[in-house]
């Protein structure tokens, strides 16, 4: 028991990588070509959308290096939330209470996830949501948040669409969907099962690769340019 308590106390301290990562990402040169950076595309499944009370039940991630998906460098876990699994969330991600009965807790898994992310840039579809959950947990467990900068494929998709507006009225097209599945269909990407953190991460990785390489053909070569493209998107209304 003593040993366990010690381990836990140790875990609560932010691992050295947090401070190192902060320094690293502060000094990182964003002007290099995109293929020189490493990305980790990830997705989470949640018990609900309220960051105050909902929790992560699954994390899936895959690594991108040289703008290629490393199919064998993946991360996939189911987690045991502290509260009981709400029924309505099971309907979405199909993770049942039985499945997570023996699953590890976030405390056990998060260090491994942080390690997996390493010095990669994080990528996700509407990544802000996932990151807010992860960082809330990180603050609780380590007392520090991840410093890995995030790229949002949703914003990239919006930027890509904007780059390809041909007519003035294109921007008033109301039928555009930025849902992950719809984007996949629209761009003809291989389809994955939805609402599984790992499958969604793979789907997002495909989308990311597609967008980045398409945009590269239109002059977006460096990481900085990609960041700017994602932020240039203006709300029309």
């Amino acid at each position: 028991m003593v040993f366990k308590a010690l381990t836990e106390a140790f875990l609560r301290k932010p691992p050295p990588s947090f401070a190192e990562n902060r320094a690293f990402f502060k000094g990182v040169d964003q002007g290099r070509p995109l293929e020189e950076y490493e990305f980790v595309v990830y997705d989470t499944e949640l018990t609900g959308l309220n960051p105050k009370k909902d929790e992560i039940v699954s994390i899936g991630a895959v690594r991108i290096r040289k703008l290629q998906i490393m199919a064998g460098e993946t991360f996939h876990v189911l987690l045991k939330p502290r509260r009981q699994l709400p029924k309505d969330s099971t309907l979405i991600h199909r993770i049942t209470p039985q499945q997570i009965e023996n699953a590890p807790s976030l405390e056990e898994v998060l260090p491994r996830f942080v390690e997996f992310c390493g010095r990669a840039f994080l990528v996700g579809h509407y990544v802000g949501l996932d990151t807010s959950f992860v960082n809330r947990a990180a603050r609780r467990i380590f007392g520090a948040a991840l410093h890995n900068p995030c790229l949002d494929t949703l914003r990239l998709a919006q930027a890509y669409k904007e780059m390809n507006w041909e007519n003035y009225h294109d921007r008033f097209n109301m039928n555009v969907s930025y849902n992950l599945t719809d984007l996949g269909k629209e761009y003809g990407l291989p389809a994955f099962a939805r609402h599984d953190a790992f499958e969604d991460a793979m789907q997002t990785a495909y989308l990311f690769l597609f967008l980045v390489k398409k945009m590269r053909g239109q002059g977006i070569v460096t990481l900085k340019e990609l960041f700017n493209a994602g932020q240039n998107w203006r709300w029309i209304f």
Partner: protein
Amino acid sequence: MSPAANDVHAVAPEAVLSFLTRTLPFNELDPATLTNLARHCIIDFFPKGTLIFRQGLTEVNHFYLIQKGGVKIYLKDEEGSVTLKDFRGEGEYFGALPIIQETRANLNVETVEDTFCFLFAKEAFLALIHSSPKVTHYFLRSMSEKLVKTAYAELRQHRVNPRTESALYLFSAQIGETIRGKSLYTIAAGDTVQAAAQRMAEFNIGSLLVHDGREKIIGIITDKDLRTKIVAAGLSYQSPVAEIMASPVETIPSQAVCFDAMLKMMRLRIHHLAVEQQEKIVGVVTTHDIMLLQGTSPLYLFREIVAQRKIEGLYSLSGKVPQVVRSLIEEGAKANNITRMITILNDQILDRILTLLIAELGPPPLPFCWLLMGSEGRREQTFKTDQDNALIYADPEGEEQAKEAEAYFKTLADKAIEHLVACGYPRCPGEIMASNPKWRQPARLWQRRFDGWLSTPEPRDVLHSTIFFDFRGGYGERGLAQRLRQHLAEQARKKEIFLLHLAKDCLEARPPLSFFRNFIVEKDGEHKNLLDLKTKGLVPFVDFARLMSLKCGVRESNTLGRLQLLAEGDHISRELYSEAVDAYEFLMQLRLIHQMQLLEENRTPDNYINPADLSDLEKQTLKEAFEVVRRMQSLIKQEFRLGEA
């Protein structure tokens, strides 16, 4: 994702895995190999219009399997004119050939759609090819088909007098002419897919037209439908054909030219078109038919051999082997691949002869195996070489069975040898053939004979017996050959005196290094030397590999295979291994090209080359090859403690 994967961080990528299990030839692999392959997979995306391979420039480090999208493959000559070679789509691949041949990209590959590919590292792909015979077979077959297409383009580009008529043939030949003589194979819509598969297997065809029970053709099913819609989808073999057929069937008028058919098939990404004549379906034209118009294909020959129903039909077919090999050589295929191809073709001919003979004579009284010796046994045949074969059969029980077996196998062997001669494989001058009762024995006596050679070696016997040590099973119950090989591998390594004789024999062949000094003189016209490539060049490698294999218990019979296993077992150094492989392949290549030239001039293939015909680079390489022989010999001296005697 299964709950069991819960605590496993690196999950096998399901998407890759399930794609592979649906794709030939990966679906043949066992789950462990597949999972490992999937884990090492890299997924890449190439927007439409990306040039992935640049002909002659791109170093190919990965094998590419198309997950989604498509590429076009084309050649560009010096003048910039483009010859379209192929379109590849989902589930198809590119990059295998440069990896196998160890060359740069031989063609341009460009995406015609946004394309996702699975990439497998060169080493992983090669390991796969070497480990799984089914995969090897698949790539060897499809490779040869593609090779010929490329060779054709090369010929067209570089020949002074291009065979323009054949290039234009596509534009002039009508579909009707092309399929004349091909029967129309159909099946009723209500029949089961199993019946369809049986029918396709029976006639060795890849598609059947589906009729409605009366006269009307309502659809088509292809072997691909069987794979993807039945086997991969797990449907019952009893499903009616109508359930999986493509309907209505795509047609082309019989008076259309072949080029139209090719375009239509490329556009629709299908391989079969029904041929229509006056509103009636008269046959099927396939991509293969079109390809045949462009050259002689090993695959075609392979299929023709397999489809032969009469032994006499084989007589003319074996004569086509050199024609097929010719285009491979011109393409620059490595000799090792070519000899393996020749071996496969020869094996098929043997297979047909014996299968048809057994059908004629009735089943054998005992299991037997046709043994191939010498170069056939080593899978290193070039053009028609003498027969070296033998026969082993299971030990008979009792006098009566022994007599019966003797009589049966005598008839079988005599007839088979006659047919082989008629096919153009000359008799062995030393009578080492299955028709010779000495070399047609039950397993027990074979074992005893090998033991005899091993235990009481006479120098002369050793010399004569070497070709026997290169045997492999060519037809029938391979287990008999394998057990004999096993016995030999276990025994030979212990027989030091025998190995010593063999080692001494290896040192007999003196590498002709001085030959090159003579050769310098020859420039002044004083000498006219010919070099015997076989005894001076190739035999030392074969002997070395055999000796070391027997000594180290390696069971392989192919020389390159033996060298590889020896290197893997650390019996020879990696350095010597790679040098020996390079040298041996070069010598084989040289011999192959030499023999090809003789055949073209209607002369009998031999092993004598005139060094004056070689380029400086070739001479240099040859000299280095002989250096390697010397190094192998010094290793033998060391291993067997044989001084400079």
